[in-house]
């Protein structure tokens, strides 16, 4: 036993070298506990010893049932709980799959009024944040672990002194989405003479709210209704990727993207410096440098008849502004202008244009405004000043990490606050500088609520008992206010008092409460919309810079503001545009790269003028980017808060500074010089052109509407010479609508979580060994300067005449009677022949025994899916475990399987609803209808391998090019 133990430990260390993020493991932790199951696996000792290790030791296995049975609680049977995602401040509805009393998978809640069934990549990865080794295990006082009583005693003593002395107590929070928590914070602050809540977001929309304060007299962020818009003009607003409510926006946007939707296809024009995910989906793009955005808006406003002063604009841009203005005029009342600049003048211009064009009430909802971004940069600036002056006696950090994500001045001022308390879950940069740590529950352990959009209150219920000695923030504030209360109690009381009366449909609170728990949200009435006020646009007119580089800071789809940078899943999610993982970088346009003599991976030193901080970043040559813009992603360069995020990329937050009270993401001018050496970026896709291959079909809207049949591909693959094998009760098929798919990558992480797909680390991605079963191929068409972008989700095509199946010597991959291309892990000997012979290259091989050392992290594994050992091939199975479960349920209930009951994970959470899956033998199923769509085509159908996955031609709402015939390939 002892020898084995040491062998296993050695193996553990060998394995620890494999993934990048494992390198940071403290030495003490890499010597991990050897559990029973570790005996069964071998790697790390010689082959003969391996055979010996493979022999199961005669360990006694325990069987530990519940002590008490409970109604409706069956081991091995999944329960779904409606709750609300706490991954960001969008407040999406989530269905959490609970197995044996712990959450294993999160999915979109189709009944949730805001997200309507979608869930983004960050949301999908949240269970991994729950089972995270880096979480704080309990409260800390001055760096030492203490129990809650000790922490509370210390705090009570200090707070009492402050209550007596009247010292200033501030709570600095990211947007507090939960009304109950907000109430708890306020009631805590009310116990002080000088207590105030300051909300500040890392990715702020404060200027937008401030603009509405000027135009409508109310600090609000409107709720944009993209589904109502015939024309969407986005200006530096990555609303499909990271801006305010990406999932809700994508869901609404996709409702109008496609020629065969109930309502006509919308047109989307994006004006931006970099190429954002949103821009990649636009029908038309206008490239401009960040400093030209406000002049562009001014020109637009003037064109639309507003009296605005404005600077000159280059002729080309002016013409574009005129064209867009014309489009907006045409779609008056049904257009929408969105702006992501954190610039009060820009936002006021947008607000006034939207008002002038009559968008309020249709596409801009002011009656039920969004509450997803409530941060006020000016309040933060004031707080920093206060702190620097030594006026703040206690600062409590709630759901924010200001030392990391706010300007450098914050850190200096923060040190002057005597009582610094953080409620963060991990010991992040700010928490590390705190005197008191009072870790909150992970949201999956907490009773919470959320009001993402006024009138829509969403409930969050815990999925398991807290794993660690953490305490709900509501309870913490209650305790410190001297009014201990349980979070559930506080929540129910708040709902009874504030939410329940807001509706009239249900008369009984318990019924209302239970319905809200099951549905995930409740809707209540709201007041009327604020009235418009005429006025002069604030601020001086701007003049766009004519030369020099400008910095554009943006957030990545996978990492957002960087708070989840310690989740390896998100670090390894390929950026939808650059396809790079595990890094941020300086994106420059191809023309700029030529001018600077740079190639992908070369190091570039960047420093905005007047800043001391210079960062050296690798270059990514980004087609479609403005030639003077250098784009850098925020959210990287974490120095604390979890090992996976440490040392990955560089932190660009400190470059932001308050300009007239707001933190702008655009910084000019920028000094650019070449760095030394180059970096091998971990990209999952290196080749961006389709090489003239008809792998993706595209078509303009007008010719399609004239003759939909013209979309049908000319060459239809003929029948197999062998004839077909009979199919069983079902025959599964999938169709992916390329017009709808935005490339948001939620499906990628959803698939990864559902199927226990390992994260491999930066080095392995560099070696092109990422494991994603579902990837999104991104191709550029057209010119480098103005490329068209196509996102094509690529997964196992479940071919009927699968080339992979023929070649496996041991029958580890064979066809099922339901048309699935089955991969049997336990039979696989790992010749990799199947992967070689796969024309789609969707098969993934376990090159190593991937590190699954942490028992805590393993709790997040789907218990229904085998965790593959090294040397085994794996690939998309159409989530066969979910199909089996759905079939089993139907059979156990003695009925036929209903259409839409069996869903793969990717389809379930797709915010754009771009994926249709079902039984093609059922003539009434949705899939059968979609399969008849003339837009349908097969990728590599000419090989005659009969893929079960097909795609719908991407329709672009553009004027057809003259050369364009009825059909056309990319």
């Amino acid at each position, binding site marked *: 036993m002892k020898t084995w133990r040491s062998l296993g430990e050695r193996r553990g260390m060998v394995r620890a070298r494999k993934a990048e993020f494992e390198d940071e493991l403290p030495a003490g932790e890499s010597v991990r506990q050897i559990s029973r199951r570790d005996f069964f696996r071998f790697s790390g000792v010689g082959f003969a010893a391996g055979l010996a290790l493979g022999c*199961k030791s005669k360990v006694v296995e325990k069987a530990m049932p519940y002590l008490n049975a409970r109604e409706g609680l069956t*081991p091995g049977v999944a329960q779904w709980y409606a709750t609300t995602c706490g991954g960001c401040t969008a407040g999406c509805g989530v269905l959490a799959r609970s197995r044996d009393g712990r959450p294993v998978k999160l999915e979109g809640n189709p009944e949730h009024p805001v997200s309507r069934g979608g869930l983004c990549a960050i949301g999908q990865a949240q269970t991994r944040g729950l089972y995270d080794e880096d979480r704080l295990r309990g409260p800390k006082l001055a760096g030492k672990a203490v129990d809650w009583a000790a922490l509370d005693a210390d705090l009570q003593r200090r707070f009492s002194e402050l209550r007596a002395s009247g010292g200033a107590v501030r709570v600095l929070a990211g947007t507090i989405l939960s009304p109950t928590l907000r109430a708890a914070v306020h009631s805590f602050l009310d116990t002080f003479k000088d207590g105030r809540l300051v909300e500040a977001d890392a990715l702020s929309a404060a200027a937008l709210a401030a603009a509405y304060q000027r135009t409508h007299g109310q600090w609000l962020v409107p709720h944009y209704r993209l589904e109502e818009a015939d024309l969407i003009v986005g200006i530096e607003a990555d609303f499909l990727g990271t801006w305010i409510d990406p999932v809700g926006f994508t869901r609404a946007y996709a409702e109008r993207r496609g020629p065969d939707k109930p309502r006509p296809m919308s047109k989307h024009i994006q004006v931006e410096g970099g190429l954002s995910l949103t821009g990649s989906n636009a029908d038309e793009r206008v490239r401009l440098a960040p400093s030209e955005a406000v002049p562009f808006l001014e020109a637009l406003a003037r064109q639309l008849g507003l009296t605005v002063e404005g600077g000159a604009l280059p002729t080309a841009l002016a013409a574009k502004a005129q064209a867009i203005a014309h489009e907006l005029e045409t779609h008056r009342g049904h257009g929408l202008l969105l702006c992501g600049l954190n610039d009060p003048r820009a936002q006021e211009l947008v607000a006034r244009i939207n008002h002038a064009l009559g968008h309020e009430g249709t596409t801009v909802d002011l009656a039920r405004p969004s509450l997803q971004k409530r941060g006020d940069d000016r309040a933060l600036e004031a707080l920093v000043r206060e702190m620097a002056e030594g006026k703040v006696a206690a600062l409590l950090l709630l759901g924010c990490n200001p030392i990391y994500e706010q300007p450098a001045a914050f850190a200096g001022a923060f040190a002057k606050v005597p009582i610094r308390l953080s409620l963060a879950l991990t010991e992040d940069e700010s928490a590390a500088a705190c005197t008191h740590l009072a870790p909150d529950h992970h949201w999956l352990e907490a009773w919470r609520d959320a009001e993402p959009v006024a009138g829509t209150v969403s409930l969050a219920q815990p999925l398991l008992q807290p794993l660690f000695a953490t305490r709900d923030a509501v309870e913490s504030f209650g305790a410190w206010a001297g009014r201990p209360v349980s979070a559930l109690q506080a929540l129910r009381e708040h709902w009874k008092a504030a939410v329940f009366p807001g509706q009239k449909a249900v008369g009984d609170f318990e019924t209302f409460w239970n319905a809200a728990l099951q549905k995930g949200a409740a809707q209540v009435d709201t007041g009327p919309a604020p009235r418009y006020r005429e006025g002069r646009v604030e601020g001086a007119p701007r003049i766009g810079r004519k030369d020099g580089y400008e910095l554009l800071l943006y957030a990545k789809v996978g990492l957002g503001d960087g708070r989840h940078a310690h989740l390896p899943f998100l670090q390894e999610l390929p950026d939808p545009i650059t396809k790079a993982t595990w890094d941020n970088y300086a994106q420059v346009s191809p023309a700029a790269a030529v001018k600077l003599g740079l190639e992908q991976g070369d190091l570039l030193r960047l420093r905005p003028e007047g800043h001391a901080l210079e960062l050296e970043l690798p270059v990514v040559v980004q087609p479609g980017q403005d030639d003077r813009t250098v784009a850098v992603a925020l959210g990287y360069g974490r120095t604390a808060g979890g090992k996976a995020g440490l040392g990955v990329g560089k932190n660009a937050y400190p470059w932001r500074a308050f300009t007239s009270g707001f933190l702008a993401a655009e910084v000019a001018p920028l000094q650019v010089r070449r760095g030394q050496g180059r970096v091998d970026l971990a990209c999952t896709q290196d080749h961006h052109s389709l090489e003239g291959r008809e792998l993706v079909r595209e078509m303009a809207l007008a010719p399609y509407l004239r003759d939909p049949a013209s979309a049908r591909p000319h060459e239809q693959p003929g029948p197999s010479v062998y004839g077909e094998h009979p199919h069983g009760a079902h025959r599964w098929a999938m169709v992916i609508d390329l017009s709808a798919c935005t490339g948001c990558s939620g499906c990628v992480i959803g698939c990864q979580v559902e199927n226990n797909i390992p994260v491999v680390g930066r080095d392995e991605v560099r070696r092109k060994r990422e494991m994603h079963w579902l990837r999104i191929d991104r191709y550029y068409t057209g010119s480098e300067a103005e490329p068209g972008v196509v996102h094509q989700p690529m997964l196992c095509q479940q071919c009927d005449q699968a080339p992979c199946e023929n070649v496996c010597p041991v029958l580890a991959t064979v066809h099922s009677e339901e048309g699935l291309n089955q991969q049997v892990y336990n039979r696989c000997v790992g010749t990799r022949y199947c992967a070689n012979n796969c024309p789609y290259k969707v098969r993934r091989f376990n090159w190593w025994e991937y590190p699954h050392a942490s028992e805590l992290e393993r709790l997040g594994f789907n218990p229904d899916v085998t965790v593959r050992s090294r040397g085994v091939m794996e690939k998309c199975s159409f989530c066969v475990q979910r199909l089996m479960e759905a079939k089993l349920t139907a059979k156990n209930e003695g009925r036929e399987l209903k259409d839409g009951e069996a869903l793969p994970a990717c389809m379930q959470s797709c915010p754009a609803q771009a994926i249709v899956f079902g039984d093609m033998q059922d003539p009434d199923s949705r899939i059968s209808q979609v399969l008849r769509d003339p837009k349908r085509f097969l990728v590599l159908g000419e090989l005659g391998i009969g893929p079960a996955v097909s795609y719908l031609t991407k329709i672009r709402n553009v004027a057809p090019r003259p050369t364009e015939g009825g059909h056309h390939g990319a």
Partner: protein
Amino acid sequence: MSSTEHLHRSRFRASFADPEQLLHAVKHLRTAGHRVLDTYTPFPVHGMDEAMGLRPSRLPRACLAFAVLGLALAAGLQIWTSAVDYPLITGGKPLLAIPAFIPVAFELTVLLAGLGVVASFFLVARMRPRLRIPDLHAGANDDRFILAAELAADIQFPAVAQELAGLGALDSGLLVEDRFQRRSAFWDRPAGVGALLLACLPAFLLLALVPVLNRDFQRRNLAWDGGMGAPLSAQAYDASGVLPSGKVLQAPPPDTLSRHGEPPLAFGPGKAEAERAGRELQNPYQPTQARFNRGKLVFERVCATCHGREGDNNGSVIVARGAFAPTVLVSPLVRDMPDGRLFHVATFGGPTKMKGYGDLLSREDRWQVVLYIRELQKAAKPAAAPAQATGAQP
């Protein structure tokens, strides 16, 4: 060669330095009426077969037979395993994909033909591993060409020796008995080989029987796992090193409500609550055949263990032990109870010994059991009720 006891009086040998001479000598001896037994040469001498009058070997026929066997085996194996024994579809190809079977069929044909003909050769030429071989015909594997023959009747050896010398024989003499045919080592003889194999047998049998004979049923077998045999994901009933109470199975936090879960009942245990349930609760289900069947199934599985299949207190536990006397379900007392009260009893238990089954049986099942009890009561003869009402309390 010192002893002459083993000399065959009629057999002799002669050695030559040149194959042509040997050939000539063989021809000569045969014409002279001697029987040439064999020749021993360092390489095959062409024309010797004819000179000795040997018939062509039948090994090609053996080769063909083995080839046919190989082909049949390959065809049979491939067809039977791929299309009959475990038909699995790969690449949409037919199960009986004859073209795909050709390569293996060919290889196995060649393999069996080759191995078969070699084995046949060894067998007919009596070639097998030997420990000791006397050097009977010295130089036959080097540079001597030797013949062995039997004297024709009436001819004496010295005359023949004379003739042979004339033909170029380097030496000749009467033949020493072929000793290794008789006096070879034991292990060189078939019996020795057989004995060797039989000697190994017990060891193998023992190894094969180890799992059967030497079993410690208290402990698990030693088993070899090529991978993925033990779960990495947390499975129900397993122990856990990180979850509270050390087990994977966790109770969901109190007061949470799953999407398709039942909201908590608005009743508690106790007689007062039972009576309130009787007043307030209605059976939400109407009796149908399906519900009757399900109610019967659940009743007989759980309730009947004590209450008896007919609700007559005749359950298997009662029959075997008879220690309690539960309430007779078909008694007028129970008949008169409202559905809600029966449901409450099924959920929270009776006032004395019966425990509630609300934790084990779904709400729907409990209502269906109530439906079934009503059917039982209808079916039971009213007179049968007050039979033995010793402890008959609800």
